């Protein structure tokens, strides 16, 4: 088992296996994710990093043919235990997707959606939450004049920041990001990266990326995956400068992938 220094860990997976039908997608993954840090998952396409991140908030439950063994502990409680409620878990572990996926509603309604479904109906409080979340997602200045416009009219980068704001509005503890910049241009990407840096003051961030420079820029810890296995975990500096495994080194240096 790979241990991440002496940090306070918030998520811990033990012997996690996952199958899509007959196909094994994750093999015996054991790792710890520290709180208030950015952890990056890297690896070539199809290595299971997106699958893994979708396990953390049980999004894979939505896939019919998916089967899981092992455990993932969040604050020491197994989120795959019978009595645990995926809805509750997803409230605490938010997710930002590869493709920006705003709801076909107004900008305001997109951000207010989360608080509303969790029972917040006070208009004034909602206004505050929306503003705060949009500010924290570095989007407020760009949209404050047109909160009632459709979110679909925003640019890709703005949409992605809106999705982040939407996630922040429910005040989760962990934010999962599944290749959040892969559909964005470099300027939008750098905005999101700056944002990630700010977010780690309050949240645990786990980011999947196929861009190694991005992993090096934004993350404190990095896990390298290959063919469904966690090959190596460590601080980002260690992984990029002194990888222990040859596979990791080959990938980092661009010999495959």
């Amino acid at each position, binding site marked *: 088992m790979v241990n991440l220094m002496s940090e306070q860990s918030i998520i811990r997976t033990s012997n996690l296996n996952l199958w899509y039908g007959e196909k094994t997608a994750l093999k015996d993954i054991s790792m710890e994710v520290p709180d208030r840090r950015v952890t990056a998952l890297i690896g070539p396409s199809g290595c299971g990093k997106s699958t893994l991140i979708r396990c953390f908030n049980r999004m894979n439950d939505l896939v019919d043919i998916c089967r899981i063994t092992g455990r993932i502990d969040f604050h020491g409680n197994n989120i795959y235990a019978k009595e645990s409620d995926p*809805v509750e878990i997803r*409230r605490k572990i938010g997710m930002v997707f590869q493709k920006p996926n705003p709801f076909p509603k107004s900008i305001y309604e997109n951000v207010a*959606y989360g608080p*509303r479904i969790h029972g917040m109906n006070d208009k004034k409080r909602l206004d505050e939450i929306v503003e705060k979340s949009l500010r924290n997602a570095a989007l407020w200045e760009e949209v404050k004049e047109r909160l009632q416009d459709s979110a679909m*009219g925003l640019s890709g980068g703005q949409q992605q920041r809106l999705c982040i704001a*939407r996630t922040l509005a*429910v005040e989760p503890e962990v934010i999962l990001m599944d290749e959040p910049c892969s559909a964005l241009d470099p300027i939008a990407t750098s905005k999101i990266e700056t944002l990630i840096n700010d977010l780690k003051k309050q949240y645990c961030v786990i980011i999947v990326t196929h861009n190694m420079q991005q992993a090096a820029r934004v993350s404190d810890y990095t896990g390298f995956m290959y063919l469904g296995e966690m090959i190596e975990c460590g601080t980002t500096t260690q992984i990029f400068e002194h990888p222990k495994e040859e596979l990791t080194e080959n990938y980092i240096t661009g010999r495959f992938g």
Partner: protein
Amino acid sequence: MKNGRDCPGGKQPPGNHSFPPVSDETLAGSHEILSRRHRRDRLIRAVWFACAFFAVIIIFFILAFLLFDAYPVFFEIGIWDFLTGMVWNPTGSPPAYGIYPLIVDSLLVTILAMAISIPLGVGSAIYIAELAPSRVKAIVKPAVELLAGIPSVVFGFFGLIVLTDWIRVNFDVPTGETWLAGSILLGVMALPTIISVSEDAISSAPREVREGSFALGATHWQTISRVVTPAALSGITAAIILGIGRAVGETMAVLMVTGNAAVIPDPIWNVLSPVRTLTGTLGIEMGEVAIGSTHYHALFGIAVVLLGITLAINLFATVILARIKEKHMAVNACSPKKSGTGEKQWFARYMQKYKNILAGIVLGLVLLAVFGLMGLLAALLGYSAFRLIQGRISPKWTQRVAFSLIVFCILSVLFALGVILYDIIANGLPYLTWEFLTAPPSNLGRSGGIFPAIVGTMYLVAGAIAIALPIGIGAAIYLTEYTREGRATKIIRTGTDLLNGTPSIVFGLFGFAFLVIYLGFGVSLIAGQITLALMVLPTIIRTTEESLRTVPVSAREGSLALGATKWQTIRKVILPPSVPGIVTGTILSIGRAAGETAPILFTAVVFSTRFLPDSLFDPVMALPYHLYILATNVPGAKGQQYATALVLLGLVVAFYALAIWIRHRSAAACKW
């Protein structure tokens, strides 16, 4: 210095970087290919334009023709007296031509039917799209689609034999032929349409959006009610409009179970009163009227009013739809919306508010007119109770309650449809013999078989589809692929919508007046085929358009960027993935054409003939009409009635099953 021209085909010396020469021949050749492709593209475009043009022209033509035949009545009686007269008695002396009771009755029947079928239908659609385990879905979804094919005359037959009897006994009334019977029947009939179309809309809400909601910790029900359903709202609205269209325009089933007394229920919410709808009046009286008499023109007047009502419904729905789209839907993801000046925005917002109020007022008036203050109060109470409860109960409980209601919806739907099917199969099967299928009828259908009717129906449907399918697909291609959204497309689309909502009996009237009388076809196969083709045309256009639209712009651009012409792009990239949608539209059309009685009532059918048609100008027998006459005019033929219903049902369902299977196979291949 050597260059390419000196040594054709020779090796270029190393270091020489000039391009190898292109011979003039190949250039000319590619030019020719280009211009040929260009010419072909233009030709094809013209063909599609002709199709779209035809679709529009025909609407105005029908309208003009009906008006032409109707105007004498407005002239003789006066529009106002015609519309507001309280008595409809064209055979009395003096005859009275007031259609107010007919209008009110039509609205009442439709509204109650929708009150039954919208909640049940949308609930069932949500169940199938969201809650059903994949195995259940694989059975229920095609089953519901199959049920869309149950012909209206079969429903009418069931209503006449079973439902009215049930109402008579359970509500202790002298006769079960009532408003309630008509509404229940219409509600059930509209269900498959509403379910199928809503389910499609709900299922097509993008997976990403759904995941986005789940990832925020929303429950399944919250995701359904706040994200998925709003995103699918325009599709659901379309489904409801289709359902209303079916209910308003339905003739046969209503005519068979509502008692046909031209009175306004007293009191107005007395659902056990007999009623007579506009369509029913046309169905009953058109066959017996003297051509050219005041009564004849009055019937065309009714058809115009009917058309007017459908037009109003459609326009109203279009306005609502546009408002929803404006509010919720993506404008165009690629081009960020230009935010107008503050003044304009203020105006837009004001308009939106104003529209809201207007819609509210209209709805209020309708409710008030129909159910009186009671209904309005009840609606208000219900709404406020809902708002109150919504905030207080935990999402989990809301979900549990909502899901129970949804399961209740699908179970009631399946139960209702199951009862109908069981009754017809159980009673019809014993009489279904080889002789019944292959012999002509004798003794007014009490013995013998229905062979000529089976053949006649097949001729009618095949002819109708053969005419409507190419024109419909062509028009749809032109509308989606060749036009920019503008005034012209708007007119065409409104036209098809209008045609779509046009009651089938109106087509029957048009076919009778234009094809049978004016063109002198007589009551004939060809008149029936053309009439049916006109009737199914809008369905084909709409469904084709919709499926073409689901092909993403990126796919079009991808193909065009490779140098494909427009037509190549359409044929190779856009049409193949649209095939399932087009097949669905065609299925619906076949079902309608095979099961409809009203359009062929006066144009193509005779009740009893021993012979098959020799030419297109011979009249034919048809299954739905045969069943209608057997059920209403021939006592003592119960076995034959059930067996005929069963055959009609089996025929249509077989068509449907085949088409669903085809679509299922092609759907597996392609998914965006």
